[in-house]
């Protein structure tokens, strides 16, 4: 509720503005334009700020929305209300096609790709007979409800801002959900999210389509606001400006889109009105000053203005709260099978000429704690990555409960009940501990994006958060549950990763250096927890450098050196093995 109250308040204020006596009609026009830009920027907030996908091409999606309704209402006499779904669907389909081609691109290729198709589509709009070439399409009918026609800026104002408020509500709902957490995890790399079953490619495509549909909605409104369309507002410069709006407002914050749209629209207006006074005949300083301001703002506030405003608030906005909810169904444990839980046979991984893992074989049984040790660079983490499907094997075979999982993608491995932590912590720093841990339960929830937007996911969501809270309590971090993950100490972040892994209800837990950065007391607690998990039926495979910790905890130890298994056995036998001593202490020992 805490996130929805401001939206209600905002809606009331916006609804009241046109009724303020003596408000200049020109302000309403300005507000109309702000609303239109805010809609597009809101899509970019999700796409770029949250999902980490930069697009310079959003203006082209506005174009799809605007031209669709322009053509359908003028050439085919369709009602604007009927062309609305068509406009959204056309923008969405365009996004699917372009998204399939571009969202898989990593790094800077994606923004460059969006510039390319942004320009390409702009020229297409300005050359096609269907879209009226450079002249565009005019005499588009106004929006109308019965006899009430929204011909003036005052009337369409309500349609525009209703759309903005609804979009904000839906966006906030989406972000605060199972799919929302998956989207928010994208920006920090794929591996952690995929290890808990998130289909990252699908999640990226989803935000891409969502942003395009919002832009299409803005285009549809624009067409009926201006009652005419031409290619200029859908060109590459407009696309750049939308991204600027989102970055200025604070990409990553829904309200940053509205703030950014307000500032940029008013700034442009002010530049257009006042600059000619400063520079007598030079009319084109507007764009120069605009460019300079853009650069200056990036240097002064690279994270945008909204976070700065938030920091001024006397209270901090709270993240989602767990409520009591029925427990999630536990995994059906396969108690009948007697074979090993995990079997690695001659697994090999080569990076070019380097053999990181050299035909390593070992097994992990049920209810067993096995440690994988070895000097730095011995191939321990690489072995983890092979087991969890993050890396593909060069040769060899890996199976879980008798099922071959060699080169199975991480999303499938976690379904079999294998959950892991990472040597380099992979949490989303600007999400709370609770939200981070809930990502672990991704596969145990079912609510999709649309259900989340419409808030139909609450039952599912409550169960997930309750489960996350339970696992946080289990690892003893209840007091930190509502803090941002990035604010915790590194040792605590490792424990959060364990809670996240437990949330997946695993039968095999892979822990990569869980005790690093913990104090003695905390290590004792961790060892206690792991024993308790084992007694509850879970197996643990851990990589650890703290020998005291390992020797006291593990039932069996596998030693790797330069990618090769050099010893395996109980802690006592491994401790006295001459090869192990040589690997750790050097040849002279």
């Amino acid at each position, binding site marked *: 509720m805490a996130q929805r109250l401001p939206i209600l308040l905002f809606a009331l204020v916006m609804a009241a503005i046109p009724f303020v006596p003596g408000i200049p009609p020109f302000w309403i026009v300005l507000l109309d334009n702000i609303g239109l830009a805010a809609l597009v920027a809101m899509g970019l907030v999700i796409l*770029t700020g949250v999902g980490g996908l*930069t697009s310079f091409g959003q203006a082209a999606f506005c174009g799809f929305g605007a031209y669709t309704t322009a053509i359908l209402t003028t050439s085919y006499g369709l009602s604007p209300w009927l062309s609305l779904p068509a406009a959204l669907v056309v923008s969405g389909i365009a996004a699917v096609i372009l998204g399939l*081609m*571009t969202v*898989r*691109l*990593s*790094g*800077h*290729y994606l*923004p*460059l*790709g969006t*510039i*390319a*198709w942004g*320009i*390409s589509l702009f*020229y*297409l709009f300005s*050359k096609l007979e269907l879209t009226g070439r450079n002249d565009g399409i005019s005499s588009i009918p106004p929006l109308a409800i019965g006899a009430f026609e929204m011909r003036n800026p005052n009337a369409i104002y309500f349609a525009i801002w209703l759309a903005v408020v609804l979009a904000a509500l839906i966006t906030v709902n989406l972000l605060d959900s199972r799919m929302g957490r998956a989207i928010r995890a994208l*920006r*920090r*790399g*794929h*591996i952690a999210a995929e290890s808990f079953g998130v289909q*990252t490619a699908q999640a990226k495509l989803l935000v891409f389509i969502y942003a395009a549909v919002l832009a299409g909605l803005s285009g549809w409104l624009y067409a009926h606001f201006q009652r005419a369309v031409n290619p200029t507002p859908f060109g590459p*410069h407009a696309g*750049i400006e939308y*991204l*600027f709006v989102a*970055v200025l407002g604070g990409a990553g914050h829904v309200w940053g889109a509205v703030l950014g749209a307000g500032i940029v629209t008013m700034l442009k207006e002010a530049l257009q009105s006042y600059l000619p006074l400063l520079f007598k005949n*030079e009319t*084109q*300083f*507007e*764009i*120069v*000053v*605009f*460019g*300079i*301001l*853009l*650069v200056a703002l*990036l*240097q002064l506030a*690279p994270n945008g203005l909204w976070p700065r405003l938030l920091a001024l608030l006397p209270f901090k906005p709270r993240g989602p709260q767990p409520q009591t909810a029925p427990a999630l169904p536990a995994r059906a444990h396969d108690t009948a099978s007697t074979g090993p839980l995990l079997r690695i046979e001659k697994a090999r991984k080569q990076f070019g000429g380097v053999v990181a893992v050299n035909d390593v074989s070992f097994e992990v049984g049920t209810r067993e704690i096995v440690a994988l040790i070895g000097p730095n660079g011995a191939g321990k983490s690489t072995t983890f990555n092979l087991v969890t499907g993050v890396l593909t094997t060069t040769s060899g075979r890996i199976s879980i409960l008798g099922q071959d999982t060699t080169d199975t993608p991480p999303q499938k491995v976690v379904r079999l009940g294998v959950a892991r932590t990472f040597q380099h912590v*992979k949490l989303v720093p600007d999400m709370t501990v609770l939200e981070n841990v809930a990502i672990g339960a991704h596969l145990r929830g079912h609510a999709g994006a649309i259900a989340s937007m419409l808030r139909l996911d609450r039952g599912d969501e409550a169960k997930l958060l309750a489960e996350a809270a339970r696992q946080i309590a289990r690892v003893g971090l209840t007091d930190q549950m509502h803090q941002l993950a990035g604010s915790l100490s590194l040792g605590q972040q490792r424990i959060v990763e364990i809670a996240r892994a437990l949330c997946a209800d695993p039968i095999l837990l892979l822990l990569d250096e869980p005790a690093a950065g913990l104090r003695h007391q905390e290590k004792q607690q961790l060892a206690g927890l792991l024993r308790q998990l084992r007694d509850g039926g879970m197996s643990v495979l851990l990589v650890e450098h703290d020998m005291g910790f390992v020797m006291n905890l593990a039932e069996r130890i596998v030693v790797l050196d330069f990618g090769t298994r050099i010893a395996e056995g109980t802690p006592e036998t491994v401790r006295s093995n001459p090869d192990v001593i040589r690997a750790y202490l050097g040849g002279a020992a």
Partner: protein
Amino acid sequence: MDTTILLFLLQDGITNGAIYALLGLGLVLVFAVTRVILIPQGEFVTFGALTYAALAVGKVPGTARLGVILGLVALAFDLFAARNKLTVRTVARSAVVYAGLPLAILGIADAIANPQNPPALNFLLSLVIVAPIGLYLYRIVYQPIAHASVLVLLIASVGVHLALQGLGLVFFGPEGLRGPPISETAVTLGVLRISGQSLGIYAITLTLIVALWLFFGRTLYGKALRATAVNRLGARLVGIRTSLSGQLAFLLAAVIGAVSGILIVPVTTIYYDTGFLIGLKGFVAAIIGGLVSYPLTAIAAVLVGIVEAFSSFYASNYKEVIVFTLLLPVLVLRSLAAPAVEEDHE
């Protein structure tokens, strides 16, 4: 198809492609050293072309004044950034590079601007006027945010592009300009008449490709510049002056842009906003080359030029659509070839 038309289109495509190759090289160079995606490369083209055209009619171009203004702003930035450790030597160095140099250039331009000047002199003077603009831009815009993400740098580039394009309009007006060719000679090869101008374009492009390739692949300093892009901190720790290498890259990019502009302004009318589109075609080539390979970029650029020449003959309305859509299959291939190897780029 008529063989003559085919040959003409090929020749046209190769000539344009050579220009795109030059620009693509500049983009790769800047990206390799600074991680900046240099959208304003096109403005260097415009500035070079229009500065040359203005000098040809004996006018002192506005870009010379822009150099002075940017230089003074850069000087202020430099002195402010080093305010706690100023020495006479550093202040003198900054004053010479950021104030003395552009003022001297403006003075020279003022003194020798004359419609009777030989094209070669104007060519050199144009380069000297435009080149420092690149250096100062790096100092003012990019050096303070050199550690920022590629995205932030990219958006900053967009801001620079907007500002420079607006300034282009202020300096040179909305009408397009043409300049005199640097050389009037021509070679006849069968049905084709190859102008000295085109030959010059080929020669300069080839020389630059080979030079850059050798510089970055073979020399220690070139390798040091590449190291800067990969890891700024590491490069600084081993003694590479990262801000200097960034300034150098931008200086080179400005020179490359200006040379391209001067080479095409006798053939094509250049408007204040023409550069943007030309620069973006250089981009298409640079991206096809993966933003790393100079030879691949050059080959891709020639391909872009040829595709453009043919599409302007057969479907002139859709020329730009075809050229920019060309990028999409390339990007798809790239993404299929290298699936999701990213991690933690923030």
